[in-house]
């Protein structure tokens, strides 16, 4: 599904050039659950942003589902993204002014799904995440675990092929964290490819493969059994 080759990303200021990704090459197959780990500043988030088409690389190739996307413009990236990728963030990133239902509905609006179909699909996914009873609440009225479940609901409502999760349990206690990891595992078992950035060895154990980064390069890959 994903094939990146010699990917490079630099951050330049007037005097210093920082290399975030240094000729990184990796592949992720459809249906995989991959964890990316490494110390702060190793390039994890940069990689995730590029994989999510939120950012573009300076050099190298990124093939997504057989399409070279490395030098797509913003409009094309947005178009590809909304049909294929769901995001889960450490800080949930729900819109405070929208209710649970409306937050989850958002991606469907942008992909032009009809209103009746939206209600059906949102309810379906809320049910699956067991937060149907909170559908008319605002994010501030929910616990952290519930908020992250809403965020996951939003990420999957469009049935994306790929979910990118950036430290999804980072703001949660261990019990809520485990719930979230179970949810992601379920999704993966139903066929969704998942790439997750994490600091937690515990969470990484849910994945099939751990890619360890240092200074923008892969230093080790562990296959989980």
């Amino acid at each position, binding site marked *: 599904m994903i094939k990146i080759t010699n990917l490079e990303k630099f951050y330049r200021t007037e005097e210093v050039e920082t290399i975030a990704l240094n000729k990184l090459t990796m592949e992720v197959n459809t249906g995989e659950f991959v964890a990316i780990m490494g110390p702060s500043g190793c390039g994890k988030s940069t990689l995730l942003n590029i994989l999510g088409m939120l*950012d573009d690389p300076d050099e190298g190739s990124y093939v997504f589902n057989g399409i070279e996307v490395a030098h797509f413009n913003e*409009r094309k990236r947005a178009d590809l993204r909304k049909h294929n990728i769901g995001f889960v963030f450490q800080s949930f990133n*729900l819109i405070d002014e929208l209710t649970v239902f409306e937050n989850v509905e958002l991606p469907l609006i942008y992909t032009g799904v009809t209103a009746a179909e939206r209600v059906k699909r949102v309810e379906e996914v809320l049910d699956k995440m067991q937060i149907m009873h909170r559908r008319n609440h605002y994010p501030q009225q929910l616990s952290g675990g519930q908020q992250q479940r809403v965020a996951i609901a939003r990420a999957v409502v469009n049935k994306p092929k790929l979910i990118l999760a950036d430290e999804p349990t980072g703001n949660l206690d261990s019990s809520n964290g485990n719930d979230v990891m179970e949810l992601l595992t379920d999704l993966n078992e139903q066929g969704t490819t998942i790439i997750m950035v994490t600091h937690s060895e515990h969470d990484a154990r849910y994945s099939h493969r751990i890619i360890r980064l240092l200074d923008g390069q892969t230093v080790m890959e562990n296959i989980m059994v």
Partner: protein
Amino acid sequence: MFKNYLKIAFRNLQKQKLYSLINITGLAVGLAVCMMIMLYVTHEMTYDRFHANAKRIYKLQASINIGGNVMNMNYMSYASGPLVKQSQPGVESYMRTLDYFKPVIVSNPLTPETKFKEEKLVFADPAFFNFFTFNLKAGTAGDVLSKPFSVVISQDMAKKYFGDTNPVGKTIRLKTDSAYTYQVTGVAENAPSNSSINYNFVASASSLLAMKEAKNYTGEQSISGGSFNLFLLLKNAADTANTRKSLQHMADNNKGDFKTQYHLSSITSLHLANNFGDFSNLKYLKIFPLVAVLILLLALVNYMSLTTARATLRAKEVGVRKVSGASRKAIAAQFYVESGLFTLLSFTLGYLLCYAFKPWFLNILQLKIDNSFLYSPIVLMFLFGLLLLTALISGIYPSIVLSSFKPVITLKGKLSRQSGGTVVRKVFTTLQFSIAVGLIICGVVIDRQLYYLRHADTGLNRENVVMIPVGNSIGKNYPALNKDVQALAGVSSVATSHYAMYGGYDMFFIEGKTKQESVALASLSVDNKFISTLGLEWKFAPTPNAQLATRTKIVINETAIKDLKLPANPVGSIIDAGNQKLEVAGVVKNFNFSSMESTIGPLGLFIAADTTQAWGTMGCNLFARIKPHTNIPSLIGSIENIYKKYDQETPFSYTFMDDAFDKQYKAEDRLAAIFSTFTYITILLATLGLFGLAAFTIEQRTKEIGIRKILGASMATITTLLSTDFLKLILLSVIIASPVAWYAMHNWLQNFAYRINIPWWVFALAGSMALITAIVTISYHAVKAALANPVNSLRSE
């Protein structure tokens, strides 16, 4: 999707109540000013366009050249109408109207004791109501003016003189040169406020011909200047040039003494072209649209500045939406919808404000605009255009800025570095304050100058003098009236003058040896109490027992000595006034007998004894000086009683001399009132703009403030640190605005012969006002930022 945009817009509006309020109000005020000015300008521009034949109606005017001096003739002779129609094949018909030049006294013969002075009596040819589009409520357009002494009255007059009864067929008395009874043949709707033809009474022209003074108006039997407005209905609007040429050809063949030029002006151009009554309106018409655009622009800039300043709050949302699949276009559309909503709310509020303040605004401009005009298609069209334009412009900048946010950054809460626009904001804030400071300076200078004009020593004591116009109807009773008023306890002295003070003077020319030496000498006919009653001072008093009250003696002022090149003490000198030799009997010190916009010109006083009967036949003004501490209303009442004893014909009226003096500066008063209003609005808008800028900039420096606090900075240091940057902008504004304002006011002051020097403190005052306003505005944010717990601000980074 649209629904989702509206939903979030409304929720944001509710959540950010203060900001929303400031934002909407600011834009609403700008829009209200814009609407009001637009209303005024549209009203001025649509004068006389309501006539069905407006495009074919032209007014004939002439100008004659007498020895290099061009004299414009707005009115034509009575005979001109038929003669022009006969000679010009392009003319379909003509219409003559005569605006009776003075107020007439009107009464209903059934209640003869109730009389009013009325203006706007028009004499017109029979076809008046067919020629022009004034609707008749009663009567048939073709018949109403066909007979002598028939009159059509306006709805207002019908109500005033006949109440709810139908006036048609009844009679009404109009006193012109003498009182005539007219038959009311119709009632016309009041003329629209944007009509240059205005009437209370439209009487048949044949009535005028039957009046004693008819020969004054109808004598001339050729196409020439006269007393009538002459409107021509052309067969085709395209005939204008031909008709003009043909008329000119006729004029050139005339073997008259003077060269005549004919002008055909479209009726729709008359109002703005012939603004004889009040030049100031034309001046406003040029300035106002500029002001409207400027104020709207400031309001829009504020709106954009405040909206983008709040962008940090929306950054995460933009990020989430983009991650959820929103394209940049979709985000831009969302903020456009939001701006559209805000604009609509502002527009509604602005319209209400405009409606509420319209009477006040029109009062300042001394203008009347019909309520029905507010709903005329052209006004509605302009309003809609304004709404569209505002929505379009207000959305641009926020849409561009907000849709450009990168989710990679905003979702991590690191917005501040990328939102930019700080320089743009600084430029706008400086501009806004420059305008505000400039207007403050102008406002203060105008105010000072007006104060100076009102309070300057003009050489005569105009306090506590009441002026009573006396009509010729008083006849021989004037001396008795004068004596009775003099006898009142509250009156210290009484004088008589042909004209009211500041109400005019006569002019005659004293020929010098060369043309340049000719002097136009203003003259006033007064009685022998005039000088003492008004407190004029003698420069050279007449010899005791001198008989001033003869037509061969004249009292002059100091300027006249100089202009007429008389000896230093001219008493006894002879002035050669053509057919008459005048002996200078005395010299009064200079005093202002007209507006202080001009210097004191040469003046001669002809003094008549008040016992002569001259006043009785000419009409005059009685000046009564009131003793201090007199109950003025009761004194006026007593004077009125005396007046009514001697004259039941002309209604009693009075003015105070100081009011008459002040009234000369009406145009300047309006300018001052409008200036101060615009100043307040600009200050308000500038303050809002600064408020937005401060919010934005300080928010960007949250982390810096947090670190400084942790390192031990006090609240005072931080507040000062944050405020200094803005205060620099304000100082820059003062530096930019001062010379511009000085230049503008320096030029304006040149209109006045008596004027103030622009004092230095005006600039200091305007600067301090701007600074204080700015400090108060910024403090809100600066103190809030300084008080914030640094732990929070650093964690969010």
